[in-house]
């Protein structure tokens, strides 16, 4: 850490915390407009059906109804999507998953509208339901979207070296198949949005729980057939997103906007938790087949990977999510011969899209599991197999990219985690204790032979059944969007003539702490104290399109833009002082604590507010727009070769668990997370990212699962969908290893997603270490461990049956 920073890297309180602890922060549903109406959605209970007719006759004349809106009211695009336009705002010919919406009713009272929506008569014909992506790929499978020739959304091949030769050269080969589940973002704030018609004709304002206002604007404008400038999207305080308030919110915003333009009044849509889970997209379930060949010394010679991602009913972000998977699927290992195929497939399941990790948690779970299996086979420790294969400076990735121009410090990260956790000794000890025995239940005293209900002495006094385990996982992660998209961001800084500043960025505060991070960047350059900075709400009409706030790119890209703007203003101020104080052009100043000082011959000092007043008086501009563009990257779609991302971060997590052999319960005692985020800007926020990411990762590892029963979701609320509570995860300890990088503000890169992507893999390896047996299917819940299979609910009704 560079000690010359005045504020970067310190523990800084959040800019927005005061509003949030006092209840004053305004989330979307806290905001109302005069004359506001509400809209409720109408769906049918089918996962795949042809719509034959819609009959509004029983509601059309009801005084409680102001307007019915369906596809016939859409002036512009009826189908939207980030890559492929396959998702209808309102369904018109088919329903392809139960979350689909056919029409919406607008009125003054939600309770009344909910009664009326049952009177809309929709006649439909059931079509065959596809729930298994492998079946969707079969030759004569019914087509979910008949406008495309098959159910394949995308296929990414990657070819490096000679895979046959690689396996022929190996001494050992392991081949295994892993599976992961649908996972819900479970932001605590359900979706809400209000569309407000503006005084200018054909223009609308959107205020909502929107993660990516610019993407939202693009969708709304295309649906209304308006120019982009006629749609103004303002982000309300966002109550969590994790990638989840993107497509869903864009579509909800478009629906509200149509309603507002047709009624001429503000229209609010507010989802219940059940509607939120029903309609919003999930994290992709993956089926991952890995085949690894290695020499007796542990050096990997070949890796063959076949991944099928369930894209659900719409393509959404599947092409980008699975692209990150194909880039990172081998893990951070230098392997000469690689063959990877990743396919995303349509089914009638809930659709899947962006969620924290974005195509990385699934392959990391698989590759890090199989690396441990390889270590065990070769009789070396898991850290050692990684040390013998992992990236170092100058290594080539699976896509043939040379890792250079940044600290490739994975070994340092790994060694720190191993040392801080005492990994090696513990792993060897627990491993030798288990002697590779499978779980055996024969000593348990079941109440009767057919029941798995334990007797009291087994679940209350079960010390004999507790086993310890330790496991680790490592990863590398491409920062920002990579070759999947345009990568640039804007920030606007406006100093006032009293030295106060307002700051606006085209990226979003999603709860992660961006306001504070970017304020720190501005404060560091200008030597301001944070209380002088006002951070303005994101508004698409006030700042250039900066792309989405995703891919752990906001600190890197937004921070780069803020720094550029701040440096530009500082340069002007320095030039002014050179003139005022008659200094040489290369005079060096310090900007700190609201003062500017010059230490050359005859020290001089001016307070920052006096300097701003002086600049203002001299007619010097005190504001600047900063722009930060990532370097060019490229990708060959046929071979999967190219410079996928312009820089990478590295991480290692070690989990220590207690496994109850009698119940299958796993408790996480300790989790050590070592990350290289480039540079830490706000230590308090960085630690918060680790605690939060690890806890979400623990949920992914052990509990969280959306079951699709012929497309229908049972877990529609938090009574069934279990996310970690305060009692569920033991100690978490973050460590940061900083590394030099030429990009971002002072080399700051990514942290949000790296913290989550490793946790399930580390926990799975710890469970393996404790149990002496590998478990292949996330989540590692009680039945997976105790029975070796997942239990499926027999009905969609609420309750524990």
């Amino acid at each position, binding site marked *: 850490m560079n000690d010359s920073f005045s504020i970067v890297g310190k*523990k800084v*309180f*959040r800019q*927005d*915390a*005061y*509003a*949030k*602890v*006092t*209840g*004053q*922060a*305004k*989330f979307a*549903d*806290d905001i109302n407009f005069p004359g506001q109406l509400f809209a409720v959605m109408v769906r049918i209970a089918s996962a795949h059906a042809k719509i034959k007719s819609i009959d509004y006759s029983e509601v059309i004349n009801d005084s409680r109804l102001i307007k019915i809106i369906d596809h016939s009211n859409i002036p512009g695009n009826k189908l939207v999507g980030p890559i492929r336009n396959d998702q209808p705002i309102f369904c018109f010919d088919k329903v392809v998953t139960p979350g689909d919406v056919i029409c919406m009713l607008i009125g003054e009272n939600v309770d009344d509208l909910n009664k009326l929506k049952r009177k809309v008569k929709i006649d439909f014909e059931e079509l065959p339901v596809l729930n298994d992506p492998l079946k969707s790929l079969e030759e004569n499978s019914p087509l979910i979207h008949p406008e495309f020739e098959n159910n394949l959304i995308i296929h990414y091949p990657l070819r490096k070296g000679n895979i046959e030769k690689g396996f022929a050269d190996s001494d050992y080969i392991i081949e295994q198949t892993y599976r992961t589940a649908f996972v819900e*973002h*479970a*932001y*605590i*704030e*359900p979706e809400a949005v209000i569309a407000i018609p503006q005084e200018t004709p054909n223009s609308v304002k959107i205020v909502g729980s929107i993660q990516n206002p610019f993407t939202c604007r693009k969708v709304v404008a295309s649906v209304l057939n308006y120019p982009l400038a006629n749609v103004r999207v303002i982000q309300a*305080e*966002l*109550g*969590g*997103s*994790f990638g989840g308030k993107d497509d869903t919110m864009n579509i909800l915003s478009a629906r509200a906007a149509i309603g507002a333009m047709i009624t001429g009044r503000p229209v609010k849509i507010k989802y*219940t*938790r059940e509607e939120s889970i029903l309609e919003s997209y999930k994290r992709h379930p993956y089926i991952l087949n890995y085949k690894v060949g290695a020499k007796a010394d542990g050096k990997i010679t070949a890796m063959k990977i076949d991944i099928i991602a369930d894209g659900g009913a719409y393509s959404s972000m599947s092409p980008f999510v699975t692209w990150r998977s194909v880039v990172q699927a081998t893990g951070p290992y230098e392997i000469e011969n690689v063959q990877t195929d990743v396919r995303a497939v349509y089914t009638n399941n809930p659709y899947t899209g962006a969620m924290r990790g974005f195509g990385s948690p699934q392959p990391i779970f698989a590759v890090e599991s199989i690396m441990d299996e390889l270590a065990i086979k070769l009789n070396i420790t898991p850290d050692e197999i990684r040390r013998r294969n992992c990236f170092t400076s100058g290594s080539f990735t699976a896509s043939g990219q040379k890792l250079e121009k940044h600290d490739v410090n994975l070994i340092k990260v790994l060694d720190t985690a191993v040392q801080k956790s005492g990994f090696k000794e513990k792993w060897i000890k627990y491993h030798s204790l288990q002697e590779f025995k499978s779980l055996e239940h024969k000593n348990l005293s079941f109440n009767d032979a057919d029941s798995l209900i334990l007797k009291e002495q087994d679940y209350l006094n079960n010390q004999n059944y507790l086993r310890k385990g330790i496991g680790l996982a490592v990863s590398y992660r491409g920062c920002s969007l990579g070759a999947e998209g345009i990568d640039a961001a804007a920030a606007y800084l406006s100093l006032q003539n009293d030295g106060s500043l307002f700051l606006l960025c085209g990226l979003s505060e*999603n*709860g*992660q*702490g961006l306001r504070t991070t970017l304020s720190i960047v501005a404060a560091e350059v200008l030597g301001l104290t944070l209380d002088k900075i006002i951070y303005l709400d994101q508004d698409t009409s006030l700042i250039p399109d900066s792309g989405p706030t995703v891919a752990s790119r906001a600190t890197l890209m937004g921070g780069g833009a803020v720094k550029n703007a701040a440096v530009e203003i500082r340069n002007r101020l320095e030039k002014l002082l050179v003139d005022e104080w008659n200094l040489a052009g290369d005079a060096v100043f310090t900007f700190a604590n609201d003062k500017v000082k010059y230490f050359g011959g005859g020290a001089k000092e001016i307070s920052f507010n006096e300097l701003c007043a002086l600049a203002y008086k001299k007619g010097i501009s005190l504001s600047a727009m900063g722009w930060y563009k990532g370097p060019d990257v490229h990708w060959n779609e046929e071979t999967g070769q190219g410079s996928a991302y312009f820089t990478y971060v590295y991480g290692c997590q070690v989990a220590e668990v207690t496994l109850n052999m009698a119940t299958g319960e796993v408790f996480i005692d300790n989790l050590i997370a070592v990350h290289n985020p480039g540079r830490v800007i706000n230590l*308090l*926020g960085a*630690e*918060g990212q*680790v*605690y*939060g*990411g*690890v*806890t*979400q990762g623990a949920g992914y590892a052990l509990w969280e699962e959306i079951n699709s029963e012929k497309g229908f979701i049972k877990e529609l*609320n*938090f*009574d069934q969908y279990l*996310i*970690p*509570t*305060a*009692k569920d*995860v033991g100690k*978490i300890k973050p460590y940061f290893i900083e590394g030099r990088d030429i990009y971002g503000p002072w080399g700051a890169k990514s942290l949000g997603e790296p913290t989550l992507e490793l946790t399930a893999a580390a926990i799975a390896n710890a469970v393996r270490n404790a149990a002496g047996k590998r478990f292949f299917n996330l989540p590692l819940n009680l039945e997976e461990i105790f029975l070796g299979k997942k239990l499926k609910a027999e009905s969609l009704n609420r309750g524990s049956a």
Partner: protein
Amino acid sequence: MKIKVSFILNGLQVTVETEAHRRLLDLLRDDLNLTGTKEGCAIGECGACTVVMNKLAVNSCLVLAGQIDGAEIITIEGLMKNGALHSLQQKFIEKGAVQCGFCTPGMIMSAYALLLSNKNPDEEEIKEAIAGNLCRCTGYKQIIEAIADSEI
């Protein structure tokens, strides 16, 4: 059917006329414009709507208007005294216990109810007190630290 209920809200006597089936959460947010109390699940699982009623933490989505007559209710808006933050609010800021902030009001009210009955809770008691308040951002660690450091 409309009923009239009187209760003490954040130290002030309040009387409202409302449909009997409405929830305390709706009264607070819609009728009294106290939007600091949030709705996250509407079935008493997430704790975002937690308020303190007669010194106990309750999910205001599970309390009907008819149940609050004569009660004393404190919401997040009632914690500040004379313009100063309550110790819990201050410690939540200092410890980094706030990220998106949607669970924060409910979390603080559960912690407040805990401190009313237990001035020096240990870590397990804190975890138990907030086990009904879901947070998806923070992993709870800094929240637990903040509560442990707070005074009533």
